[in-house]
C-alpha cells in the first residue's frame, strides 16, 4: 500500500516548497538541498505515522504534475537558505509572520513563482485546514504556516508574468506594486574571454609544448621495453654498441652514413671517423676547419668518396681510402644539414633553404640551385636511379624535384615537381623505397610524428600513420615490405611498420637513452645502425637476410662471404675515438 520511496520523496519536496518564499528573503542564489539520502528532521514526519496519507492528499497528487511545468520556480526554490532560526520555526510548526517578514526585505525580480497553484494553495489551504481534524493535516498546517499572506500577495502579482521579466519590466513592476526591489544581481556586460583564444602566442606555446607532455604509450618503461609480433621476432638488444663521444645532439644534422663498402662514417663535432664494419678498425678521416663543426656526412654511391657538410657552408670531398681531402666546395651561406649523392652529383641542403647540386668533377661545381624551401633543408635523398630528388625542410614541406639537370646555368631556379605540405613539423626523415621506385616515405618532427607514404608519379599520398613521437629518420627494408623509423622523446624507440598495412611489426622502446637521431642501413640490408644524443652508436639486427633466395637480389657488396655483416670481432662496447 505504501509506495516505498517516491511518495515520501514527493512529500518531502512538497514540504520544502513552503520554504520558497524565503528565497526571496535571503540570498536567492544560495542553494541548499536537503540531502537526498537523509530524511529531513521534520517533526510531522516522525509524529505522523500515517504516512500513506500523503498519497490521499489531493495536493500532493497534483503537485508532481505541476512541478515540471514550472522550472523557474524550481530554480528559485533552489535558493533556499534555511537558516537555523527559520528551520526551528518550521519544525515548530508555527511561523510568526513578523519573523518571516523581517527576513523578507529582499525581493528580486528573478523569482517568478508559477502562476496557478500558488494561488490555489493560498486559497485552498485554509479550507483543508478547516476540514482537517486529522493527523494528516499537520502537513497542510505546516504548509499554511509558511504561506504568508504578504508573500502570497507579492508572489501573485509577480506571477502574472511567467517569463523572467526584463530588468526594466521588473523595475516598472516594482514601482507599480510598491515592492522594494532593493537588491540587484549584476553581471559584467562582457562574457569572460574564451580559454586562450585571445592569446595566440600562449596557444602556440601550448601547441609546441604538448609533445613534451606526451604520454608514453603503454605502461612499462623498461629500458629494453620492446614489443614484437608473434610472427616476427627481432633482437631487442643491440648487436654492438660503439661509444661515440661528442656526437652532436641536434635533430637537424645527419651525422651517420654507411657505405656499400661496409664502412660507417660518423661525425663527432669537428672530426669525421670511419669505422670499418669488416675489420672493426676505426680511422679518423680528418677535421673540419677550426671553429666550426661537421653537420652532415654522406658516402658516394660507390663508397669511395665521402661528402662532408660543414657548419660554415662548405662542402668537402674526401677520399675514403687515402684519407685525403680532395676539394672544398664553398658558396653556401648556412650550415649544410644534409647531403645526398647521385653518381657525380653531390646535392647539399643548406640552412637557408636552398639545395645545390655540386658536380664534383668540374671546377665550377655548382651546377644547379633548387629553391623551394623557406626553412632549413634537413632531409635530402636521391632516388637510386637519379630521376627524382626528395627534400624535406624545417618549413614542414616535402618537395620532390626532377633530377634532370638540363642546360641551366648557375642561379637558375628549379621548380619542384610535387610540393607536399601535409606535415606539420620539420621533415627530416626521407627515404625512397628500394623495391618500388615510385614510393617515397617521409616522417615529420615533434608536432607531426606522422609517416606519410607518397606516390611520386601521381603525387598522391598513399598511406599515413601517426606514431607516438617525433620521427627522426626513416628507412625502407631492402628485402622485406617494411619501414623502419627512429623516434625521439618520449619513446626513444626504433619501430618497424609493415607495408602497406602500416601495422606495427615491432618496437624497441628506449633503444637509446636519449632521442634516436640518425639511422643507416647496412649494405646487406640486415643491420641498422642508430646514433643518438646519448653518444652511442648501436647496431641492431632487424632483418634476416635469407641466405639462398635473397642472395641473388642482394646488392653487390665487396665481400660476399661476410654478406656485409658486421664482423663480430668482439661483442661489447668499442670506442670510436
Amino acid at each position, binding site marked *: 500500500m505504501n509506495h516505498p520511496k517516491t511518495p515520501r520523496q514527493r512529500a518531502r519536496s512538497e514540504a520544502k516548497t513552503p520554504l520558497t518564499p524565503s528565497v526571496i528573503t535571503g540570498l536567492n542564489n*544560495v542553494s541548499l*538541498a536537503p540531502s537526498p539520502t537523509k530524511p529531513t528532521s521534520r517533526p510531522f514526519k516522525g509524529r505522523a505515522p500515517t504516512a500513506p496519507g500523503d498519497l490521499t492528499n489531493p495536493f500532493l497528487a497534483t503537485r508532481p504534475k505541476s512541478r515540471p511545468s514550472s522550472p523557474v520556480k524550481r530554480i528559485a526554490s533552489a535558493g533556499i537558505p534555511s537558516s537555523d532560526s527559520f528551520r526551528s520555526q518550521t519544525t515548530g510548526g508555527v511561523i510568526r509572520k513578523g519573523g518571516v517578514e523581517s527576513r523578507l526585505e529582499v525581493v528580486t525580480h528573478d523569482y517568478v513563482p508559477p502562476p496557478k497553484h500558488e494561488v490555489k494553495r493560498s486559497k485552498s489551504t485554509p479550507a483543508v485546514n478547516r476540514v482537517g481534524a486529522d493527523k494528516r493535516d499537520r502537513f497542510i498546517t505546516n504548509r499554511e504556516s509558511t504561506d504568508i499572506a504578504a508573500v502570497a500577495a507579492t508572489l501573485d502579482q509577480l506571477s502574472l508574468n511567467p517569463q523572467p521579466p526584463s530588468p526594466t519590466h521588473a523595475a516598472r513592476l516594482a514601482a507599480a506594486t510598491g515592492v522594494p526591489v532593493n537588491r*540587484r544581481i549584476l553581471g559584467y556586460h562582457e562574457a569572460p574571454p574564451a580559454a586562450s583564444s585571445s592569446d595566440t602566442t600562449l596557444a602556440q606555446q*601550448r601547441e609546441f609544448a604538448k609533445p613534451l607532455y606526451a604520454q608514453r604509450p603503454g605502461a612499462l618503461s623498461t629500458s629494453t621495453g620492446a614489443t614484437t609480433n608473434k610472427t616476427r621476432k627481432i633482437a631487442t638488444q643491440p648487436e654492438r654498441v660503439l661509444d661515440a663521444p661528442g656526437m652532436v645532439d641536434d635533430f637537424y644534422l645527419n651525422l651517420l652514413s654507411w657505405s656499400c663498402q661496409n664502412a660507417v662514417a660518423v661525425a663527432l663535432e669537428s672530426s669525421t671517423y670511419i669505422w670499418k664494419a669488416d675489420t672493426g678498425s676505426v680511422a679518423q678521416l680528418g677535421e673540419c676547419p677550426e671553429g666550426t663543426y661537421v653537420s652532415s656526412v654522406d658516402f658516394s654511391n660507390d663508397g669511395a668518396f665521402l661528402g662532408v657538410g660543414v657548419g660554415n657552408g662548405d662542402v668537402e670531398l674526401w677520399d675514403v681510402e687515402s684519407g685525403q681531402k680532395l676539394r672544398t666546395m664553398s658558396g653556401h651561406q648556412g650550415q649544410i644539414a644534409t647531403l645526398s649523392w647521385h653518381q657525380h652529383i653531390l646535392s647539399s641542403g643548406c640552412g637557408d633553404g636552398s639545395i645545390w647540386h655540386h658536380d664534383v668533377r668540374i671546377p665550377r661545381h655548382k651546377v644547379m640551385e633548387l629553391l623551394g624551401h623557406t626553412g632549413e633543408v634537413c632531409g635530402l635523398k636521391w632516388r637510386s636511379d637519379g630521376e627524382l630528388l626528395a627534400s624535406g625542410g624545417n618549413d614542414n614541406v616535402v618537395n620532390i624535384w626532377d633530377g634532370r639537370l638540363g642546360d641551366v646555368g648557375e642561379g637558375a631556379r628549379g621548380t619542384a615537381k610535387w610540393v607536399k605540405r601535409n606535415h606539420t613539423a620539420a621533415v627530416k626523415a626521407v627515404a625512397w623505397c628500394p623495391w618500388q621506385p615510385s614510393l617515397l616515405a617521409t616522417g615529420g618532427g615533434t608536432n607531426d610524428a606522422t609517416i606519410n607514404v607518397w606516390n611520386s608519379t601521381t603525387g598522391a599520398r598513399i598511406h599515413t600513420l601517426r606514431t607516438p613521437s617525433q620521427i627522426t629518420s626513416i628507412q625502407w627494408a631492402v628485402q622485406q615490405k617494411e619501414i623502419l623509423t627512429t623516434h625521439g622523446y618520449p619513446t626513444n624507440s626504433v619501430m618497424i611498420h609493415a607495408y602497406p598495412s602500416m601495422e606495427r611489426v615491432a618496437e624497441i622502446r628506449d633503444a637509446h637513452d636519449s632521442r634516436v637521431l640518425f639511422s643507416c642501413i647496412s649494405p646487406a640490408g640486415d643491420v641498422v645502425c642508430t646514433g643518438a644524443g646519448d653518444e652511442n652508436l648501436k647496431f641492431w639486427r632487424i632483418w634476416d637476410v635469407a641466405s639462398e633466395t635473397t642472395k641473388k637480389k642482394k646488392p653487390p657488396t665487396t665481400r660476399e662471404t661476410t654478406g656485409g655483416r658486421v664482423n663480430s670481432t668482439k661483442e661489447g662496447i668499442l670506442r670510436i675515438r
Partner: protein
Amino acid sequence: MATKQAGKQANKQAITLKGSAVLVTEFFKYAVNTILFQREVYPSDDFHMVKKYGQTVLVTQDLALENYLERILSQMQKWILTGSVNQLVVAIISKDTRIPLERWVFDIMLVEPPAGVEGSEDSNNAPRQPKPEAEIQSEIRAILKQIISMVTYLPVIHEPTVFNILAYTSESADVPVGEWVDTDPLAIEASKSQQVKMRSFSTDVHRIEAMVAYRYEE
C-alpha cells in the same frame, strides 16, 4: 600617557575602510584565480606561480583574462568602498548547455563598528583591538587552501566550462551604465545541489564568508 601610546600604535595598525576594500578585492583576485585554475576553467598552463600571502598562488597570465578580472575587481572595489555590494559569486557554467555547475559565493559583510567613540578615554571599554595583518593573511591563506582542497570532493567536471562573476548589490549602488547589467542568478536547483560552507576571514571593517554550492546528481 600609556593610553596615548597605545592609541598611536592602534592607529598605525588599524585598517581603514579603504585599506580593507583593497585587501578584500585583492583576496577576490587570488580566490577567483585559484578557482579558475583548480576547476580547470582555463588551461592550467595559462597560470603561473606567484608568491602571495606567504604561499604560492597560481595567477593567470592570459592577458585578456587578466584585464577582464581587473575591470571587474576595480568596480568591485568601488562598491566595497561604498558598501553597496554584499555578495560576489563566481558561477561556473557548462559551456555548451549553460547549466550552472558550481557557485562560489563570497558574502561581504560590514563588521559592526565598536561602540566606543574614537579617542575615548576608557580604552578598556573598547574591546576591539585592530586585527594584525598577519592574522588576516593567515585567514585568507586558509580560505585559499580550502578552495584547493575542495577539488578532492567536488564532482569532476568533464565538459568545457565558462565562468561568470555576479555582484549582488544594493539598489542604490552606482552602476556604470552599459558595463554592468542585471543578470540571472545562475542558481542551481536545490534538489540537485549540495553546498559546503567554507572558512571566513575578516578585516576590521569587512567580514567575508565563503561558500560553495555545486550540482550533484545521483
